[in-house]
């Protein structure tokens, strides 16, 4: 053995340096410092692109983002309208009617102003608003927190901006219910089938252990029809449904003409349901 400790350390040191330096050089050659900068810029750009589908940016008119405008005054003028709207939705979608309020399943429901908009409390509410109820439904948010929470992608935002439920995939973990700030989701604690009155044979039921909610009537709008609740309003224009990304649509004209509010906009979920108060 003519290898001395001194020689061994020399060789080891040089190879370590070569190893570290070599990988750095190779990395630089492969990615290239310019393309690293380009990638960073592209990333920034895509963030902006994402924002532009929301309210603050310029939406792309070729894409769809369905939304709804609800005129609370029309619901005050016709107090029976709310009931009709709820019945229309729930009978079309085979929503069960449980006797116990704890098991309640709701896709659209009527509530008081202060419950719908708890972030804008008003001690001296006008009489009409105080004595009447307004309809609530899934907001079909542009940034839906329920979709982020779902571990199976059973709930997802489709290409038309509708937050959908795929009941085949739902495992009933109820993370989405915890994530939704609007209480739009209901859980089937019991087998719903025996509690469905007036079965609609063209639409499925749900099973025990899945979460359900409003789907903006995806099965109807996919065929060019209006959602069931909008149809129930008839010509009153109490509820107007349409594409928010299309500047010429009826809903965008309404939004231009009226001051509208959204439920809890401070959360940044960008709801697609607007209320004319």
């Amino acid at each position, binding site marked *: 053995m003519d290898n001395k400790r001194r020689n061994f350390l020399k060789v080891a040191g040089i190879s370590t340096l070569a190893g570290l330096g070599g990988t750095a050089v190779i990395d630089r050659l492969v990615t290239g410092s310019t393309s690293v900068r380009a990638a960073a810029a592209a990333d920034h750009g895509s963030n902006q692109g994402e924002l532009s589908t929301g309210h603050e940016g310029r939406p792309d008119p070729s894409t769809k983002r369905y939304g709804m405008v609800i005129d609370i005054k029309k619901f005050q003028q016709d107090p029976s309208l709310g009931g009709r709207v709820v019945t229309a939705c729930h009978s079309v979608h085979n929503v069960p009617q449980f006797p116990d309020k704890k098991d309640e399943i709701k896709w659209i429901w009527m509530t008081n102003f202060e419950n719908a908009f708890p972030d804008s409390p008003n001690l001296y509410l006008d009489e009409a608003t105080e004595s009447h109820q307004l309809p609530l439904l899934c907001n079909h948010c542009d940034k839906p927190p329920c979709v982020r929470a779902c571990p199976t992608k059973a709930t997802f935002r*489709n*290409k038309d901006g509708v937050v*959908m439920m*795929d009941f*085949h995939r739902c495992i009933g973990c109820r993370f989405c219910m915890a994530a939704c700030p609007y209480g739009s989701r209901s859980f089937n604690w019991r087998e719903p089938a025996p509690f469905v009155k007036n*079965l609609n044979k*063209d639409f499925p039921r749900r*099973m025990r252990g899945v979460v359900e909610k409003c789907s903006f009537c995806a099965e109807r709008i*996919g*065929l060019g029809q209006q959602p069931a609740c909008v149809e129930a309003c008839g010509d009153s224009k109490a509820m107007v449904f349409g594409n928010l990304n299309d500047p010429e649509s009826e809903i965008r004209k309404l939004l231009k003409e009226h001051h509208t509010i959204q439920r809890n906009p401070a959360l940044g979920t960008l709801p697609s349901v607007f209320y004319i108060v």
Partner: protein
Amino acid sequence: MYDSGKIIPGLIIFVLFITIPIWYNRGTAASVPKPVLPKDAKTCVLPAAEIRAEHMKLLNSWRDEVLRTGDRGTFELEGKQYQKSLMLTCMKCHTSKKQFCDTCHTYASVKPYCWDCHIAPAE
């Protein structure tokens, strides 16, 4: 052979014991199911052999196309347009779940969960 008086009867008892399912169920084999086919429709969505083997995959792909991709386009069969739907297309011809779906599913001991939510035609 030592102890052949014990080993041979023992072997016979063992063989009889492990073949219990064969001789116990002898003659009771279920006949091959004969699902009742619709009278007025002659062609299905796919040729018979294919639909028999692949109908579950077809239903899954319909489900994903309609629900997840949002492609609710119809397809044409003998000049008529049909939706991609179990309830609105399949069960309109195959009007009896008991006489069509259940015959084979019971025979093959498969329990599809379709009917937990989807509504079978009234019988």
